[in-house]
């Protein structure tokens, strides 16, 4: 799969996203196998692993999370690769640069893929006399780093301040998810935040690729779910083999051709260890979220018609991203949260315009004097200053953020009651973009227009 796509060059640093579940655990085992093989098809990149602890959001106690982490660490250490443990709480400390697409640093552009592989093999043969091969040596170096790395914050916290900060962050996280009304929106938000955190680790630790363990079954569910969520415009990127929306770090999905059943059999027969953690929708009701409904639909259909999942998958494979059709001058605007190209140009007669019009018509204006009850934002004397209001200063903040989002992310934010509980990096990036847009408007008439302006634009 990797060879066919020629996406990963030899010697590249690749971050494996491990959730503890069957698909990503299987991916880890196969990477281990691939790296140790002596054949010509041996994998040649330098792996690292990241595990994100989401226990706070899923209602787990500190003790339960600690136990899960211990189990995960056993697996991580047994792999022999350098690993990073991250807690979802760390999203509150992310920089706003996460939401900006970075320029692509091509890994081995000078050589073609074939030359890069040959060069790598030659280099390896030269080092073969006695000394360990290049990846092994680098891994050993990383292991010494890892043993000096900070212990995850939940255990062995040195100072009371650190413990207090961790508790505050956990509280903030619980509050954020508490202010999201629907399970669907919670799941979407969780995925978004998790992806930002993984991206951040990849950038700071200089990984140029991230491997996700999405199985064929998972991606088929994701495809239909995203269609239902209004994310049709980004389907190719969300379910394709490689996803380069962030620019410098590319996300690849090598497990996308294996069905969940195949992975389960593989894990059972080869004794691949997995760690089960309850997710947001564990034991939820059937129709609790769109994800659940689609999952049930697909699995149910699959039981009677075993080609269902692969048919959905193959249809998805036919989707491809259109390359940007304009030069650097006309960089498409990107969604604040998911970094897909914005699909919300409201043209006459578009479906989006129809939705917005009917929304406005059916909305009742809020009365100026709201009933008693505190707003969710501290410091707002009356409810007027709170972000919950659809009129007044709070409404501006909400409208501002909504205008920066693609349709799918708008639905998630619409279900979020308190925008103030969003992490700082999201809010500050929204502010920054608003100021830039305002500034651009002011100096618009002084800007020299490019000759290559598409006809029809003013």
């Amino acid at each position, binding site marked *: 799969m990797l060879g066919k796509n020629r996406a990963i060059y030899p010697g590249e640093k690749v971050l494996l996203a491990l*959730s503890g*579940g*069957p*698909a*990503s*655990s*299987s*991916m880890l085992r196969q990477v281990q196998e691939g790296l140790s093989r002596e054949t010509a098809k041996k994998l040649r990149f330098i792996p690292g692993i990241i595990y994100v602890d989401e226990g706070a959001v899923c209602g787990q106690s500190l003790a339960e999370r600690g136990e899960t982490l211990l*189990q995960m660490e056993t697996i991580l250490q047994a792999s022999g690769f350098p690993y990073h443990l991250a807690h979802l709480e760390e999203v509150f400390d992310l920089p706003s640069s996460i939401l900006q697409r970075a320029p692509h640093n091509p890994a081995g552009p000078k050589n073609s893929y074939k030359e890069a592989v040959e060069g790598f093999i030659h280099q390896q043969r030269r080092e073969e006399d006695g000394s360990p091969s290049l990846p092994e040596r680098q891994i050993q170096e990383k292991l010494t780093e890892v043993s000096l790395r900070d212990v995850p914050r939940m255990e062995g916290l040195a100072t009371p301040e650190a413990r207090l900060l961790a508790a505050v962050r956990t509280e903030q996280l619980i509050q954020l998810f508490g202010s999201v009304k629907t399970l669907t929106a919670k799941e979407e938000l969780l995925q978004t935040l998790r992806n930002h955190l993984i991206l951040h680790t990849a950038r700071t630790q200089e990984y140029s690729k991230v491997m996700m*363990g*999405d*199985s064929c*079954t*998972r991606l088929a569910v994701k495809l239909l779910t995203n269609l239902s969520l209004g994310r049709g415009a980004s389907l190719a990127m969300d379910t394709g083999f490689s996803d380069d929306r962030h620019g410098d770090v590319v996300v690849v999905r090598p*497990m996308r051709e294996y069905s*969940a*059943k195949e*992975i*389960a*059999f593989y*894990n*059972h*027969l080869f004794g691949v*260890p*997995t*760690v*089960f953690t*309850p*997710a947001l929708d*564990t*034991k939820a009701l059937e129709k609790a979220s769109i994800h659940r409904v689609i*999952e*049930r639909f697909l*699995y*149910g259909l*699959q*039981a009677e018609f075993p080609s269902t999942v692969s048919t959905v998958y193959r249809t998805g494979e036919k989707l491809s991203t259109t390359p940007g059709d304009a030069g650097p001058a006309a960089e498409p605007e990107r969604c604040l949260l998911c970094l897909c190209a914005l699909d919300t140009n409201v043209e006459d007669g578009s479906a989006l315009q129809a939705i917005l019009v009917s929304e406005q018509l059916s909305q009742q204006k809020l009365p100026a004097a709201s009933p008693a009850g505190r707003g969710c934002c501290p410091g707002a004397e009356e409810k007027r200053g709170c972000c919950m209001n659809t009129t007044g200063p709070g409404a501006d903040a909400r409208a501002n953020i909504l205008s920066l989002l693609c349709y799918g992310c708008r639905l998630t934010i619409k279900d979020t009651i308190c925008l103030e509980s969003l992490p700082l990096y999201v809010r500050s990036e929204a502010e920054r973009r608003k100021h830039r847009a305002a500034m651009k408007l002011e100096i618009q008439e002084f800007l020299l227009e490019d000759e290559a302006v598409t006809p029809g634009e003013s």
Partner: protein
Amino acid sequence: PKRGGAELLFDGVKKHQVTLPCQPEPWDIRNLLKWIKQNLLKERPELFIQGDTVRPGILVLINDADWELMGELDYKLQDQDNVVFISTLHGG
């Protein structure tokens, strides 16, 4: 230790060594499922069993072989048979 998720419905117990009571009807998977529903399932039966059979998404292995090869619900249990239920609903 491997934990797949399905054990959540069985009080967290992963492995069950069971001795099925003697009865005139032969023990096949269909009856085994009924027995499990009555005696082992602690909560939310609809997450494990749907009608006569297991919920879509739950794999059944009989002695490490896919139950589809063994006759599914009609397979007659032998002494010392090993039946494994794997939930594929929790992704990876």
